[in-house]
């Protein structure tokens, strides 16, 4: 991908034209996690405009794309109505499938994976299953150890997953989704 | 077999749509070559017999375009045109001409891109409808008219 291609391809794949961004920074200014990001939203837009592979690589390996909460504040205030959250989704999927997830963000990805695993197994989220799966994958065995029992006590947790009947139809949807991907 | 290239005539007023089409040009917005413009002082000037004549001479489609309501350079020409257009639709049915073959639109001097849209969408519609072949019938009607 050379300079022209990057923004062009992004447009093809997402319908978003990063060239529309004129760097006013309103997205960053309103971003709840902007100050924690290594590359702030408007900077990412600029890097995708500048368009060389190095910058794309940097973006894909940034933790920003994973810190994005999809709160949609940027999109709702962008004077150019650029759908940045949608762009972030695209970047995340790409970063993940190319195994370029930022080390600090691995546990975020791990959580998403555990979440989808749980959904794949039962068709619905099984919160204990999710948390266990997550702990195993991140080794954060002792995080929130007190939380679970209390949740259970308050009747907020089911020991056994609640599964849907037509699991086949679901399996079809999950077929080679977010799978066989290094990360 | 190459794609059917419809012949479309645009009857436009000098003040709004002709100027709008000029703007399409100065803005370098591209559109299909099928449409050719004939300039009128005002859509109010357009005698709808002329539209039938166009069909009898082999036009596949027609665009009539002038100023937006209330924006007419001559106060009310576009209203007259619209009123006549409504009566004319009946006549079209009578002659078995698909109403979609005539695109009636308003394009102001500031709407360069809109003109391109009007042209392209009309060309697309006429492509779907295919060539207009029934012109003998219209010609016949025109002769009768002439005799009256």
């Amino acid at each position, binding site marked *: 991908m050379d300079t022209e291609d990057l923004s062009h391809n992004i447009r093809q794949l997402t319908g978003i034209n990063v060239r529309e961004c*004129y*760097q*006013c*920074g*309103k*997205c*960053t*200014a309103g*971003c709840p996690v*902007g*100050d924690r990001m290594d590359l*702030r*939203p*408007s*900077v990412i837009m600029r890097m995708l405009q500048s368009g060389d592979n190095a910058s794309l690589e940097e973006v894909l390996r940034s933790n920003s794309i994973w810190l994005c909460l999809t709160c949609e*504040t940027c999109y709702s*205030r962008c*004077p*150019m*109505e650029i759908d940045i959250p949608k762009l972030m989704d695209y970047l995340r999927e790409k970063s993940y499938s190319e195994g370029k997830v930022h080390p600090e963000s691995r546990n975020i990805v791990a959580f998403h994976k555990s979440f989808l695993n749980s959904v794949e197994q039962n068709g619905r989220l099984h919160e204990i299953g999710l948390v266990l799966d997550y702990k195993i994958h991140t080794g954060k065995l002792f995080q929130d150890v007190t939380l679970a029992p209390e949740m259970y006590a308050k009747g907020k947790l089911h020991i056994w997953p609640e599964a849907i009947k037509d699991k086949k139809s679901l399996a079809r949807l999950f077929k080679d989704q977010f799978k066989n991907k290094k990360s | 077999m190459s794609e059917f290239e419809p*012949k479309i*005539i645009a009857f436009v007023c000098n003040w*709004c749509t*002709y*100027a709008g*089409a*000029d703007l*399409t*040009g100065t803005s*370098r*917005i591209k*559109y299909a*070559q099928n449409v*050719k*413009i*004939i300039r*009128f*002082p*005002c859509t*109010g*000037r357009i*005698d709808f017999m*002329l539209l039938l004549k*166009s069909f009898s*001479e*082999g*036009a596949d489609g027609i665009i009539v375009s002038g100023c937006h309501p*209330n*924006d*007419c*350079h*001559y*106060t*009310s*020409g576009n209203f*007259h*045109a619209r009123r*006549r257009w409504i009566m004319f639709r009946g006549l079209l049915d009578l002659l078995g001409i698909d109403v979609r073959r005539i695109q009636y639109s308003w394009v102001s*001097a*500031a709407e360069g891109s809109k003109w391109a849209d009007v042209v392209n969408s009309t060309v697309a519609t006429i492509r779907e409808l295919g060539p207009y072949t029934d012109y003998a019938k219209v010609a016949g009607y025109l002769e009768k008219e002439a005799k009256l």
Partner: protein
Amino acid sequence: MSKIGVFICHCGENISATVDVARVAEAAGKLEGVAFSTDYKYMCSDPGQTIIKQMVKEKGLTGVVVAACSPRMHEPTFRKACSEAGLNPYMCEMANLREHCSWVHDKSEATTQKAIDLVRTLVEKVKLDKPLFPIKVPVTKTALVIGGGIAGIQSSLDIANAGHQVILVEKDPSIGGHMSQLSETFPTLDCSQCILTPRMVEVAQHPNITLMTYAELEKLEGSIGNFKATIRKKAKSIDEKLCTGCGVCATKCPTKKIPSEFNTGLGMRTAIYVPFPQAVPNKPVIDKENCSYYQKGKCKVCEKVCPTGAIRFDQEDELVELEVGAVVIATGFNVMQPSGFPEYGYGKYKDVITGLQFERLASASGPTLGEIRRPSDGKIPEKIVFIACAGSRDPAKGIPYCSKICCMYTAKHAMLYQHKVHSGKSYIFYMDIRAAGKNYEEFVRRAIVEDEVNYIRGRVSKIYEQNGKLIVKGVDTLLNAKNVEIEADMVVLASAAVANEGSEELAQKLHISYDAYKFFSEAHPKLKPVETNTAGIFLAGACQAPKDIPETVSQASGAAAKVAILFSQNELSRDPVIAVVNRSAPPLYSTCVGCFMCATACPYQAIEEELITNRKGEVIKKVARVNPGLCQGCGTCVAFCRSKSIDIQGYTNEQMYAEVMALLNNE
């Protein structure tokens, strides 16, 4: 047998790049009745025109088709050339190969073919062209100027000083417009009122200027040289001849809590009021919506206290008809409405104000007498934030354009603030600084370097109120997009300049065109910036697009010059593109059957009755006749005429049919 000359223009490469001009010329040459055809790089250039003239003479051409740009651009040019060569100018037509062909299509066979079709069509039209002669119409040497801001004032004075009569119509009680609201003006920082008010007085005293304030255009009929304007003079409820402008009525009026328009709601006024002390005329009007007499039927305090008994509660709106030869529109602009900025809390937080409101705060004649005090509690703000492009360059808010004046007045605002509040800190959030203009860039630099205004490149995302402060969440895009949060005491939005309310309706009354943002359209973006598409109607100032004062004034003088040029002649000749009812030899005289459908269709009452009499003077036939002075040539009558007796010169039925056939039969 017609001898037509066809001249194909390359327009540099504008046409020749996508159209094979040589082939078009060749094809044209083969057309029946074409005596000569050629192509040339610049037809409109002097050598280009010379070719046409030579050929008209040499070949004795009976008609000319110039295939070049839009006739709206160069038709006059080439018709002039033809008449210089002795050919009737109306025997010259243009085929639009640029705007309608080369610029809108890619290079291809089809494009060249279309060009050929267009040329053929116009050739057929020219064959049927008949020599026409311009219509002479008298010129009424009085100008109507609509809008009494700086643009209207300048135009009026210039036209009046050229020795012509001017009627200046202003919708508000006083002239002065936005400029009279401004504090000091960039880049010289001289006080707006000080330079404006003398002009206002000059207008009031000028023998050639009739001033109509509190009045609006109701209707405009007729055409260049001979318009008929109807003006509605709104009832002021006072007798201007008796009123001395002493002002007692206003001081005594019990209704005192009406937000003052002049002070953009930051100050109050009474129901009977003069908008501001330097108003011209300095005589009050009663605002009926807020007057307790008009609303509740009792009060009349002003009447009691008026020493000259000038109050007239029974006064009614008056409609006056005026004969004018030209119109200058100078209705100005407005600022974007509060509802536009939910994220900035404009309309919700008192201390978030617009640039125009800041002007009033900074103005010596303003509600705070020039002290910068915030609206909520009158405190002097220690930290003030200015936000540029508030609405401008913001498609999401429906305004993609740049308002042009904000960069400069925002710099000025910050400067004024720093001058008035020495301990204060000012911040400007901006995207680009557009300071193109004489001494403009220097002015901005001074604000930054000397007056220590802090420019931060980035937009503000949100403003919210937190214990008496306004928290401004912005960003510095030049510092790797670092978040910037400022606890401000006051925020000033450089809110976008938008078209004045009612401009659409006005445009429709005047039959001029306007753009997507309701600004009035000039006849040509470069070469006719003060003309409109309607002859005799000119534009001045921000009603055409956002402009600063110097620009407005120069355009206003430009419009005035155009009017003066028009008035320099006693008669002007109009295109003879008008309707005519045919005449023929006796016993028929005319195919007109006298149904007068045409009269019902004509928007200009141009259709008259003509009685045809025999030698004995007996009436044998009543037919329609078109008054050439009134007819504007729309041709609506033609479409209405059942007996095909009426036709438009230059757009005859015969010609239209010929064009259609030429266009379609291209095998």
